[in-house]
């Protein structure tokens, strides 16, 4: 039956808009990641937009941590792992033989689930990486003190630590330690920050601070976050990718789209089942 009197309201939140090629930070194409003979990630292609937060969600074992670690070649550190497909960063495959993985990790930093500050002072935690990567005064910060302050400010930690910069980073609370790790990552001036469950070990207040920080940092950096907390993904991310396991337990990408669409009107029944707690 024709219903000519119906018209659709154009609602941005339900529109399926994927990132465009001209604004991509990093792009995975036909990615397959193996641990020995086991394929942990299967045929994943994903375009991550610049200056956006992209969340990777999915049940345990779906390969989301493996996937995020492949974005800065951290997965290579696992014995027996290898990868097929390519990951393009600035138009270059980061797995090409000519590419130095250390340089990749400088441009694509990582924050882990458990805060892991060095057993050094708060100041040294931030300054260390910058020194190692050849901190240059011509960046606009005439000395390291100012750079450390700038990084701690960006990590929303400065006001809490400015009077105790010489104290151990390990003396801080869990949430503060995590922000210190973020400051340390920023100090190396990455373009992309990978976050693997960055708030799962933190209480709700500390979690909120990390989430707020992510929204501030995305003005300057691209953020990819793995989270088990779907509401966190819904709160902080612009795009969400849902992964699950297929019949041979390999991680597959089920659905990728704007976060609002994924959490209110997913296209795939597996996504719907997962986000409503009926599956996974």
């Amino acid at each position, binding site marked *: 039956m024709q*219903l000519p009197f119906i018209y659709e309201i154009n609602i941005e939140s*339900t529109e399926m808009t994927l990132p465009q090629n001209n604004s991509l930070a990093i792009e995975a194409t036909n990615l397959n990641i193996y641990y020995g003979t086991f394929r942990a990630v299967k045929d994943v292609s994903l375009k991550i937009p610049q200056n956006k937060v992209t969340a990777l969600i999915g049940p345990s074992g779906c390969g989301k941590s493996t996937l995020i670690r492949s974005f800065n070649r951290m997965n290579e550190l696992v014995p027996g792992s290898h990868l097929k497909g390519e990951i393009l960063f600035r138009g270059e495959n980061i797995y090409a033989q000519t590419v130095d993985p250390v340089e990749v990790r400088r441009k694509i930093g990582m924050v882990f689930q458990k805060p892991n500050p060095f057993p050094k002072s708060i100041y040294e935690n931030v300054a260390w990486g910058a020194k190692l990567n050849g901190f240059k005064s011509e960046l606009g910060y005439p000395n390291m003190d100012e750079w450390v302050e700038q990084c701690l400010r960006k990590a929303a930690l400065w006001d809490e630590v400015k009077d105790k910069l010489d104290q151990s980073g390990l003396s801080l609370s869990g949430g503060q330690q995590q922000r210190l790790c973020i400051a340390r990552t920023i100090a190396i001036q990455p373009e992309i920050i990978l976050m693997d469950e960055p708030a799962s070990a933190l209480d709700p207040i500390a979690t909120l601070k990390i989430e707020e920080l992510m929204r501030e940092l995305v003005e300057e950096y691209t953020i990819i976050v793995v989270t088990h907390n779907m509401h966190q993904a819904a709160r902080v991310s612009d795009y969400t990718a849902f992964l699950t396991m297929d019949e041979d337990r390999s991680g597959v990408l089920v659905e990728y789209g704007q976060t609002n669409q994924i959490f209110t*009107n*997913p296209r795939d029944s597996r996504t719907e089942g997962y986000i*409503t707690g009926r599956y996974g």
Partner: protein
Amino acid sequence: MNPINTRETFDNQLSHLSQEVLSLGKMAEIAIRQSMQALQQADRGIARQSIRNDLEINKKRYALENNCVTLIATQQPMGRDVRFLTAILEIITELERIADYAKGVSKVTIRMSEKNSSITIMTHLQEMAEMGLSMLERSLEAFMRRDTESARSIPLDDDQVDHLYNQVAMELTNMVIKDPGTVQTAQYLMWAAHNLERLADRVTNICERVVYVNTGEMLEFDQMEDE
């Protein structure tokens, strides 16, 4: 002891809420029927009772709204669940408004000084009410059965209600032309007709929400023929 299945508990809460929405719909339907009975019989007693009953309907609507808010806060729903709960918030508002239209019709009965003699007009008003109530009943059935197709087709019947409304308006105009002394009665009956016409519009809104729950599509069934 069996472990508590939180998803099952939530499903039961949603199912209970659906039944309560249906129950509110029934109350709105009874309110319209009661107000029409009062109008047809020029019975101010029934009209006053109908107005008093509206308090119960309002109370139930707020209780359901509170249930929805509690579930949204405690379950943090997503996907279809969040569409379902936000749709219920809209649907219960529409049902409460429908009950308000019953109150409007009852007020007409209380204010009219005499029984209206035009059988044709009263028949057409009754037809409008029946048509609107049929739409209401079917829309709530569609809601319960997740029947998107019905939800899309029910609003088509609004044209018939609009047609009857225009007919009543014309008949009332003729009545006043023939006998200018009936002008106040005509005004009151026009008010009653307007309330019944709006009832069908509210049902259309309910149908939009049913489609939204089932598909995620935000549709508007255009009721403004002249636009």
